[in-house]
């Protein structure tokens, strides 16, 4: 690096420094002006409040925005509304109580108890019926041979005395006829003996067939009985369900009655509450009307505010324009100087061939790291960082 380069660089830095100081100064001046403008505009644009005068009263809005309606709710109406609202509450309480009573109405409890009792009884009956049905069905499904034998034996036992009497009578007749000791090849004994034997055999056969029929009939009866028991069980279940349903309906009806009563009471309470609310709301009618009037007053306030703001805006714009023009002029002067000084330094640096270190313009301007990627902050940047742009309106 040549000495020219060092000169060029020092010159540039001194010039750049001088210039940055000028610019800062300019910026500080601009900011102070803007701040001053802002304060002026704040005073000019600040809300000054307004008031509305009606028959009901005077409502004012102070510069802080506080509203003084100047008109309160109608106490009589409020009291009436509160009273009715209280009545509605009582009504709701009554409705709630009625509903509570409806929910726990004795008819429902009785119905429930009756239904439970009915269910218990019917359940027992159903169980018994179904048990009997099952038993009868099992009996119906059993082999009928044993029963046939029983019926046959009973039938034979029942008719045995008759047969014995008939045989005794036949033997007596046979004896009286002198045929007791008679045996013929055609009959084994006498024809009467054969007839009696045939009658006995027929009676036995008939009893056997009757026993079979009876056993089958009994099995069928048991099956029918089982079905009937089953139907009884089913009917008991149905009755049980019906009873529960009826009792449930009764309870439901009772509950519905209670609910209806509660509803009616609630409606009444609601109506009372509504009336109270309406009364309460009606108590705020003057206040609302005053607010409506205040709304109308706000238009006028807005119009005043708008004018105020418009004037402040115009002032701000003009102030800002002036500041902007000053800054722009400072800026243009700086840039021009920078360009002139840069060109001088460049020319100095080019004398020493190769620009030695520190011979760059920025370095010469005192902004060696302005365009550097190093972490070293330049004083320019620190200056820019310290610039209060918020003060600019």
């Amino acid at each position: 690096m040549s000495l020219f380069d060092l000169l060029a660089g020092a010159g540039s830095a001194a010039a750049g420094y001088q210039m940055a100081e000028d610019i800062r100064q300019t910026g500080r001046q601009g900011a102070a002006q803007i701040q001053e403008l802002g304060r002026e505009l704040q005073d000019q644009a600040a809300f000054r409040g307004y008031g509305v005068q009606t028959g009901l009263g005077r409502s004012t809005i102070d510069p802080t925005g506080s509203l003084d309606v100047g008109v309160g709710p109608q106490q009589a109406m409020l009291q009436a509304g509160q009273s009715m609202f209280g009545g509605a509450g009582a009504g709701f309480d009554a409705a709630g109580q009625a509903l509570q009573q409806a929910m726990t109405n004795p008819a429902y409890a009785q119905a429930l108890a009756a239904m439970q009792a009915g269910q218990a009884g019917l359940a027992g009956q159903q169980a018994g019926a179904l048990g009997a049905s099952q038993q009868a069905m099992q009996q119906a499904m059993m082999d009928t041979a044993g029963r046939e034998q029983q019926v046959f034996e009973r039938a034979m036992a029942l008719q045995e005395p008759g047969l014995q009497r008939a045989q005794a009578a036949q033997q007596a007749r046979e004896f009286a006829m002198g045929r007791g000791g008679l045996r013929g090849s055609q009959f084994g004994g006498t024809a009467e003996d054969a007839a009696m034997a045939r009658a006995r055999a027929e009676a036995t056969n008939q009893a056997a067939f009757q026993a079979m029929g009876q056993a089958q009939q009994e099995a069928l009866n048991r099956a029918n009985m089982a079905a009937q028991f089953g139907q009884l069980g089913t009917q008991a279940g149905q009755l049980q369900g019906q009873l529960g349903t009826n009792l449930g309906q009764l309870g439901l009806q009772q509950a519905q009655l209670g609910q209806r009563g509660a509803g009616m009471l609630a409606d009444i309470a609601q109506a009372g509450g509504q009336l109270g609310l309406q009364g309460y709301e009606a108590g705020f009618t003057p206040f609302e009307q005053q607010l409506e009037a205040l709304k109308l007053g706000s238009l006028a306030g807005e119009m005043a505010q708008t004018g105020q703001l418009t004037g402040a805006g115009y002032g701000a714009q003009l102030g800002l324009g002036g500041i902007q023009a000053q800054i722009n002029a400072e800026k243009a002067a700086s840039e021009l100087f920078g360009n002139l000084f840069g060109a001088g330094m460049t020319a100095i640096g080019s004398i020493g061939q190769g620009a030695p270190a520190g011979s760059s313009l920025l370095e010469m301007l005192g902004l060696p790291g302005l365009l550097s990627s190093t972490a070293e902050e330049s004083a320019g940047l620190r200056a820019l960082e310290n610039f209060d742009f918020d003060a600019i309106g």
Partner: protein
Amino acid sequence: MAQQQQNITVSAPGFQGLNTEDSPLQQDPGFALVADNAVVDKFGRIGSRKPWTEFTTAINVTYSAAVGVADTQIKTHRLGHGDINGTIYVLATVGVYQYNASGSLLQNDYFICKLTTSAGPTYELDEISYPALVDDSALADARIVSFNDKMYVFSAGNECLEYDGSTIAKLFTGTNDVDYIKPQDDSGTIAAVINGDIAAAAYGRLWVSGVDGDYQTIYYSDLLIATQWYDGRAVPADAQNTGGILNVNEYWPSGTDRIVGIAAHNGALFIFGRQSILVYNNAAVGDPAAADGIVLADTISGIGCVNRDAIANIGSDVLFVDDSGVRSLGRTIQEKSAPLGDLTSNVRRDITDIIALTADKTTISLSYWPDENLTVVNFSNDLQAFAIEMRAPSVTGGNKVTRWTNTVWERAMYYEIAGEARVLLASSASGYGCFLYDDGLNYNDEPFEFKYESNSFTFGQPANSKFVKQIDFTVVSTLSNAQAYAGWGYSGRLDYTKSLTITAQAPALYNVAYFNQTDEYGPGLTTIKRYRVNAKGSGESVIIGFRIEVNGNTCSLQEINVQTLIGRII
């Protein structure tokens, strides 16, 4: 002062037969105290019976002579006849008894003979061989019946024999269920053979009792089939068999009895017990065991039959010999054992005594001879019989009865053959075979005695003494002279007799040559002749007697006239 003689006429003396029951003084003069070998002839007079004339000339049986035999007796025991395929056969059972000199029986043989005819005609008994029997001696009391073109011989303990006209075989010959059906049921054989001796053929069946010694049961055969009997099996050999068994043990009215005879009459079956009678109706139906079959119609107690052969069917009635005499079954049934059923009531005590004293009741028999109008109850053991006149009863209601003596025959049998009625008598006199009850000489050419005695007469004055002066006997005699004896007496016995020669008067016969001349009619001499007997003695009552030897001749006593003086009252 002399008294006038009274003439007492006894017309038709003895016409009422014997009467030993009523008081002699109260009797009708027609009754007789004795009427031996007498019958009531067709003219209503008492006369001599017919002799036992010899009928069979030979008995052709084969037997071995016993060692030491001194006497051989050949006796005919039982008779039977039947129609086999249109031919009348007569069977007889014959016994040959060989005795030694001391009279002990050495050997007895029994035969079944049939009556054969040869030219002449001559009749003989020819042996028919028969199968071996259990007890040949039972043939001496065999029962011979005819049934469905065969004849059957039943004897106690021996299987029934069947005679088909040529041979004799056992009833059950061959295979059971094939050739015959024995009494049986599903429990087994009831009777292996039919070996009873009480049998009857009636209503198309054989009815037999005494099978295996059971006299409470009657076995009856199938209809018209003698070889098929009770078959009580579930599957009988012949589905149409209607044979059966009738046990009457529980039906004796006296509680107990035994079957001694079976008779059939008027659709009923009469089962005779010894002291009871069972009457079964409807025996003639198709099946006795059917619902409309036999039924006990009546039971009679206290009256029965003494023997199987002491039963006679007279067509309109059944007669039988009870302990009390000969009874009429029809009358017995109608009158329930009333006295009217007693045919021998006029001699009841006599006949009852004989029956009671006859130990072997098989010697008692009863037979009906329709051509003679007689029923004869024979007591062969006593060689006497009572002949019962069947035409009309006596005035007492009992039948007219006479007594026969020397009845040397065990059984009598009436039968007809070729239009001829015969009464065959099974001779118990050795070697005679069969007699014929017919006119002619007696079998041994010995006369028998026709004997009459009247009851005592008082002539209506019982307290006065009688002096019989003369007795006139009006006699009918034919064929040959005969020796007779007139008798009279007082106080119930014949004290005096006087012989008479009864001359025979040849009867006027139509179309019979006389003295070899060609007269169309014989001489018309009367056969009636009066014989006068002078009498003597005196007494309160008078009895008159008459007896005559009969052998080829006939004699009837028509009238007796008694000439007597009635004396003072004694």
